[in-house]
Each structure stands twice: as structure tokens, then as C-alpha cells.
């Protein structure tokens, strides 16, 4: 359409800066010694090392047998898993007495990202765990939360302070053998966040982890575990950014959620990893396994994701609806511009009686972006009276992008209901002209139309982040009409 819009395509990724900080890295490559080294960095107990080594064995077997997943509708060159660093941390990593001891360079980095960590500047009502490359560097509001029995902080600290909880739940939702990237993550994960909300407690603030990849040629492999006991409630948000680099970097995380009777977990993601440049050079490979287990009766897990970054996104936040009357929800906005590729969706596994799931997926493709919705709804033989509603809408900008929908339905009992609706639409030149004739610029018009398209998902985000997500969608789409 207009040339001015095309020029805006060159707008730079806002979070692409690099922090100049002294790093400690272990040698490149992947083997049992590397896994032992990572484990020793965190002073881990023997059982965890053993678990990691089993995961490594599994990964190496899968790699040797060629089990690299190929079913997703994404393409990228083969990854050399030996030509990569698996651990990088800002140096020196010593015990911090308080946040005031955090390296000022790191504090400045998070400030620049809009995540102030220092006491006087903290985000009101949000506790933040900041993960920088392989380690957690700070957690805010930790003490206040502990007064109510809520544990929130880095995964490595949780392994030291609450090993019984970690041993009980780690790998209980996503076993190391689950898939290729889960096996890799289980072997080499270095840190991540852990949250635990005890019986009957409603977490009084949003918990949030902010992931930042900084080091070069380094993969980020974090592990998040959230447990909500009977009747507990927690809302958790993660955000992520990375510097602009010419090479691709791997991010392979695993997230496990466990909700017991009447517990609720709301998990929101605003994913803004570096997407690569407009010719497809660089960017993060975001290969993530996220799964929640609704173990208890009437428990509820709700995933909301806004995926605007990464060169390739491969993720399917899922719910295992085990408890009777449990509820799973998946609200997703995925946006692919330029050369980005996304294959994303969810799995709703209905096991218990009268379980309910809702899937609302909004895909936006622009430039030469390609994206697929891939979703599985399985109604097990005992999931009597269960229901699913799925709605997948795609919005196309321009004629060089693509949108694909792959719904898989498996119904093993006669009393369940599954509904699936799908639409594809295009932002029309006539819609843009209509807006412009009313004095609204083309960019604002696109942003308005896209936000309107995503409204059902954006309203599921915590208030503070909904605004940020709306802006992000606008920025990610600049220059996409042509």
C-alpha cells in the first residue's frame, strides 16, 4: 500500500541491546560432564543429577535415532547441539544479602526493559523474578509473600530450600522422556522460577518472571514449576526479550503447572524474543513445552499467550483435565511478520467427568510470516459429559503470508461435545481507507483493527499487561502492509 508504511518496516526491535557484563561460561558442547558441571554450579542433590543424566541419555538416543520433531509446519537448518553454550551467568555469582548487591549493570538492564527491581521503584502489585541467561538474578517481594506461606523465587534456590517439593513435582507433568526438547531441557536446565501457593491461600499479587537472553551462542533452558494446593489461586506472568544477533539462539523451556482440588492457576505470557531481521537473519528458536495438570476436582488452569517475537515458535500450552469438573482454557494471539514462523496451539486432554475446555486462538500473519494453529482435543472414555469449544481465527495482512489450521479431535465417549469454529479474514484496503478518511493514520488503523481482532484474548491478560500487549502488537506490525 503506501511507501511510508514500508519504510517503517525497518524500525528496530526495541529490546535488541546487549548488556556489557562479565560472564562466566562453561565450555561449548553437550555431554555428561557438562551436565555434571551445571548441576554442581547449583549445588544440586544427587537425585537431581541422576535425573538429569537419564534425561541426557534419552536426548542423545533420540538425537542418534533421528527423533528431532519434524511434524511442525516450520523449517530451519539442522541445529548442531555440540556447537552451543549451555550455561552462562553474570559473574561473580555469590550469595546476595539484598537486591542492593545486584550488579548495577544488571539493574540498569532490567530498568531499560521496564522491569525495575530496586525497592523504591518496584512495580506495584507484581512480584518479579529476573532470569538473566542461565540464572535468576533477583526476586522482588519474596519476604512479603513468604509471610502467607507462598514460595516464589528461583528454581535453583527452591532445589536447595524445598527439595521435597521439587522432588515431588518436577517432571510429574512433563516427564523428561516427553519429547525431544523436554529431554534436552531436563538435562541442561540451569534455573527458572518456582511458585508454590499453599492450601486455601489466594496469592495477593501477580507473580512474574522476566527472562532475558544476553550472552552470545548460548541457549536458554529454564524450568518453571507452579503448584497451587487445594483452593489456592495464583496469577503468573512471564515476559521475555533478547538482543539482536545474527545467529539463531535456542530457547527450550519447560513449564509445569499443578492444580489440586478447587485450585486455580492463571498463566499469562507476553513473548517478545528477538524475531530476527526482516530477511530472516537471526532470532530466537522458541521450542517450549508447557503443560498444566488439573489434578484436583473443580480445578482450573488458564493459559493466555501473546506471541509476537521469535524467529520460530513451537509451543502448545496444554491442560490435562484429570479432576472431575476441572476446567482448561487457552487464549492465544500469535503474530508472525517478515520471515517469522509459528506452529502453536494447545492440547486439551479430558480425563475426568464433566470437564470443560475453551480454546480461543487468534493468528495474525503479515509480511512473509507463516503460522499454523495445531490443537488436539481428546475426550477420554471416562470423560462423560465433557465439553470443548474451539475457535480459531486467522487474520492476513498482505498476500505473501500464510495461515493454516490443524485441529485434531479424538472422542472416545458418547456423551461429550466438541465444537470447532474457524475463520480466515484479511485486513482490506477498504477498511484502512475508511479509517484514514476519518483522520486515523494507516498505522493506527492497523493497530486498531488487529487489537479488535484479538480483543477476546487480550481481555484475559492482567490489566497492567494488556496495555503493554496492545502496544506490542502495534509495533510488531509496523510496516506489515504492502
Amino acid at each position: 500500500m503506501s511507501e511510508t508504511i514500508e519504510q517503517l518496516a525497518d524500525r528496530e526491535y526495541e529490546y535488541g541491546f546487549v548488556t556489557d557484563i562479565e560472564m562466566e561460561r562453561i565450555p561449548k558442547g553437550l555431554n555428561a560432564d557438562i551436565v555434571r558441571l551445571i548441576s554442581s554450579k547449583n549445588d544440586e542433590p544427587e537425585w537431581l543429577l541422576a535425573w538429569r543424566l537419564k534425561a541426557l541419555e534419552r536426548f542423545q538416543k533420540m538425537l542418534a535415532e533421528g527423533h528431532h520433531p519434524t511434524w511442525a509446519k516450520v523449517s530451519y537448518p539442522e541445529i548442531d547441539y555440540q556447537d552451543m553454550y549451555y550455561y552462562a551467568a553474570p559473574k561473580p555469582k555469590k550469595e546476595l544479602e539484598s537486591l542492593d548487591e545486584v550488579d548495577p549493570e544488571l539493574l540498569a538492564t532490567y530498568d531499560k526493559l521496564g522491569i525495575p527491581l530496586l525497592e523504591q521503584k518496584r512495580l506495584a502489585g507484581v512480584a518479579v523474578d529476573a532470569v538473566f541467561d542461565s540464572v535468576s538474578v533477583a526476586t522482588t517481594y519474596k519476604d512479603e509473600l513468604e509471610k502467607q506461606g507462598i514460595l516464589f523465587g528461583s528454581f535453583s534456590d527452591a532445589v536447595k530450600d524445598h527439595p521435597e517439593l521439587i522432588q515431588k513435582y518436577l517432571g510429574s507433568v512433563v516427564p523428561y522422556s516427553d519429547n525431544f526438547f523436554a529431554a534436552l531441557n531436563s538435562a541442561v536446565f540451569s534455573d527458572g522460577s518456582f511458585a508454590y501457593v499453599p492450601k486455601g491461600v489466594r496469592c495477593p499479587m501477580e507473580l512474574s518472571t522476566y527472562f532475558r537472553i544476553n550472552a552470545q551462542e548460548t541457549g536458554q533452558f529454564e524450568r518453571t514449576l507452579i503448584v497451587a494446593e487445594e483452593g489456592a489461586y495464583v496469577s503468573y506472568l512471564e515476559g521475555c526479550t533478547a538482543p539482536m544477533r545474527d545467529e539463531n539462539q535456542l530457547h527450550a523451556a519447560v513449564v509445569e503447572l499443578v492444580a489440586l482440588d478447587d485450585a486455580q492457576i492463571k498463566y499469562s505470557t507476553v513473548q517478545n524474543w528477538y524475531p530476527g531481521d526482516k530477511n530472516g537473519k537471526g532470532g530466537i528458536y522458541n521450542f517450549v513445552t508447557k503443560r498444566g495438570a488439573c489434578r484436583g476436582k473443580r480445578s482450573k488452569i488458564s493459559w493466555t499467550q501473546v506471541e509476537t517475537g521469535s524467529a520460530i515458535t513451537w509451543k502448545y500450552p496444554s491442560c490435562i483435565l484429570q479432576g472431575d469438573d476441572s476446567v482448561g482454557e487457552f487464549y492465544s494471539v500469535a503474530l508472525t511478520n517478515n520471515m517469522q514462523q509459528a506452529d502453536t496451539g494447545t492440547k486439551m486432554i479430558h480425563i475426568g467427568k464433566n470437564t470443560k475446555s475453551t480454546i480461543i486462538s487468534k493468528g495474525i500473519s503479515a509480511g512473509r510470516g507463516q503460522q499454523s494453529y495445531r490443537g488436539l482435543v481428546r475426550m477420554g472414555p471416562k470423560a462423560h459429559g465433557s465439553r470443548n469449544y474451539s475457535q480459531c481465527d486467522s487474520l492476513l495482512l498482505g498476500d505473501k503470508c500464510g495461515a493454516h489450521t490443524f485441529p485434531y479431535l479424538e472422542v472416545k465417549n458418547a456423551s461429550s461435545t466438541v465444537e470447532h469454529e474457524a475463520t480466515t479474514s484479511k485486513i482490506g484496503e477498504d477498511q484502512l481507507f475508511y479509517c484514514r478518511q476519518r483522520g486515523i493514520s494507516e498505522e493506527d488503523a492497523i493497530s486498531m483493527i488487529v487489537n479488535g481482532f484479538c480483543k477476546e484474548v487480550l481481555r484475559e491478560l492482567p490489566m497492567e499487561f494488556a496495555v503493554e500487549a496492545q502496544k506490542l502488537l502495534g509495533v510488531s506490525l509496523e510496516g506489515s502492509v504492502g
Partner: protein
Amino acid sequence: MLEIKNLHATAGDAEILKGIDLSIGAGEVHAIMGPNGSGKSTLAGVLAGRPAFAVTEGSIRYKGEDLLELEPEKRALAGIFLAFQYPVEIPGVTNNYFLKASLNAIRTARGEEEVDAMDFLTLVKEKMKIVEMPQDLMGRSINEGFSGGEKKRNEILQMLLLEPSFMVLDETDSGLDIDALRVVANGVNHLRGPERSMLVITHYQRLLDYIVPDVVHVLSEGRIVRSGGKELAHELEEKGYGWIEGASAP
């Protein structure tokens, strides 16, 4: 207010406008009539800057400025309003939100303060009365599921809110029953004033009983072939467009 000289415009490869000359003074209402395919809607589109049309020759000056230099949104900010023949549906964006964004963009361009949500609501309610529009249309997506009449009322509502100085009504009467026509015309007449001009494009004389023009032009094959007073519209209605076919410009 508006000065069109020797305007030629194409849509794709086809030349649609073949040398239009038209001068509209402040406070004047001009009507453009003509058979299907004569170029009426192309003229409306060119005035608003619709990207589908290319101007190949000639000039348009608006308040002394070169209108063709301006992007569509800049024209809107400068006070040009097009009431669309086919108002566009935009799912997910509420009428309310859209109109407020539009009004504030235009107020900012005029050097006025933006209106807040409360003031906007009061203002909108007042204007909705004029076009007899039901309240619930404001909370719905723009034009989505609106009836033909509701869409046209919505156009006039926007016009009443934005208070433009030059208005183009592109076949606003098409698809309206007589009651809706009266309501819409009433809305348009609210805006008539010494500082505002209008170009009313219509296929039928009927609308001009309600919006009485100062001058009527007949467009045929991309040229204005006849101009006259309001009685010209009646003459056309009686004799049909066949009457002016082949006639030369006065």
C-alpha cells in the same frame, strides 16, 4: 472552497474522469447527478484520496491548498468528509471507540483539546437524537450487522460529530426508504451553514427534495455535460438520462 480544474483520473487502465471543471464556494451545496458508470463515485473517491484511483492530469485546490498532495488522513484532518456509499464493516472495533479516536484526531489537528470519555458520550447522545439512531449501535462493532439504513445513519452521525467543512455524500440515499431518507437529510441539513460546502452525489432527484442544492451538475462519461439550478434535477427526472446523452457541455 474547492476548485477542480481539468481533472482526469483512472481506475486501473481505464480513464474514468476525462476533464472535470468544478468550483464550489463556501456555503454552497452542489449536486452531481448522472447515470451509472458516469464517474460520480470516482469523483468522490478522488476527492477523499482513495488509493484505487490515480489522478493523471489537472488539479484540485481546497482552501487554497493543493489537495492532491495530501494523504487521505491529512485531507480528513483538513476538514474533508466522505459519507461512503458502502460503509465498511470492521469487526471487533466498537463504533464508540472508533468515533472517539476519529473525533480526537480531528480535534487535535484543529488545535482543540481532546474530549474525554464522559464528554464524548454526552456529545454522541445529542447527535444520535438528530439521526434517530438507537443507543446500542455505539457499543457494536463498526457497521457489523447494521442494516443498510443504520449504516447510512452512522455515516451522518460521524459527519455531525466531526463537523467537517467540505462534505461529499456518495449516493447516501441509495437503499433508504422514505422515512430513513428524511432522517438522513435532516442530519445533513443540520450542518448547512455559510462556512460549509457540500457535494451531494445521487442517482435520483428524490434526495434533492430534502437537501435542496444551489447548483446541479450532470455527469456523463467522465465530464460535466450540463449545469443549472435545482430545477435541472426535476427536468432530468422527467426526461431521463437519455436526454443529455451526447449533449455537449454548456
